């Protein structure tokens, strides 16, 4: 029972490089989310999607982009990486949106040097 799968688990980037964090879910959920988690700060929403072809900005979208071409996949693109993007990134999905349970991946730890 895979649930939400994120890759890679760890990555080190140099300033100015770009990369894509992959997220896939096998629960046929319409709602998908990208969060970043910084120590002592809780989780901040980067982008979200309510279905294939539909995405919208969250609280901290600058420096990121997303796409949602299928129900299953919701990749997060980092363009021109900066040290401020050093964080742990979590992808989540939900059947009922914010009123229901969020299912989280195990996270991707990104360091920008």
């Amino acid at each position, binding site marked *: 029972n895979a649930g*939400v799968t994120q890759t890679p688990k760890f990555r080190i980037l140099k300033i100015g490089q770009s990369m894509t964090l992959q997220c896939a879910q096998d629960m046929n959920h319409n709602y998908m989310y990208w969060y970043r988690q910084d120590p*002592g*700060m*809780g*989780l901040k*929403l980067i982008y979200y999607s309510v279905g294939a072809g539909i995405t919208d900005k969250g609280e901290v979208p600058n420096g990121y982009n997303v796409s949602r071409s299928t129900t299953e996949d919701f990749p997060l693109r980092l363009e021109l990486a900066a040290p401020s993007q050093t964080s742990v990134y*979590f992808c*989540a999905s939900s059947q009922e*949106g*914010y*009123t229901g*349970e*969020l299912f*989280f*991946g*195990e*996270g991707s730890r990104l360091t920008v040097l």
Partner: protein
Amino acid sequence: AQSVTQLDSHVSVSEGTPVLLRCNYSSSYSPSLFWYVQHPNKGLQLLLKYTSAATLVKGINGFEAEFKKSETSFHLTKPSAHMSDAAEYFCVVSVGNDKIIFGKGTRLHILP
């Protein structure tokens, strides 16, 4: 406007003693309230959810929480702590499908 405050960033209890993690919320409407747990290097997992059906909510692993509207609180409790309960706990508030807010987390330490 909605907000959520976890009153303690760290809580330490001895194994076998009760656990209390405190959460206060602010919401203009009837909120949905959640507690999530995060074990080291893992994603968050739902412990329990309040959606107005009953004020005392039972969750997994012996945890429960009581919704107190007059105090705007949703504290998480467990009668007897176990070493495996050591983790970070997040209180979360949502209002409809518009927005969800995470508290900053409480790290629970269990002393042998």
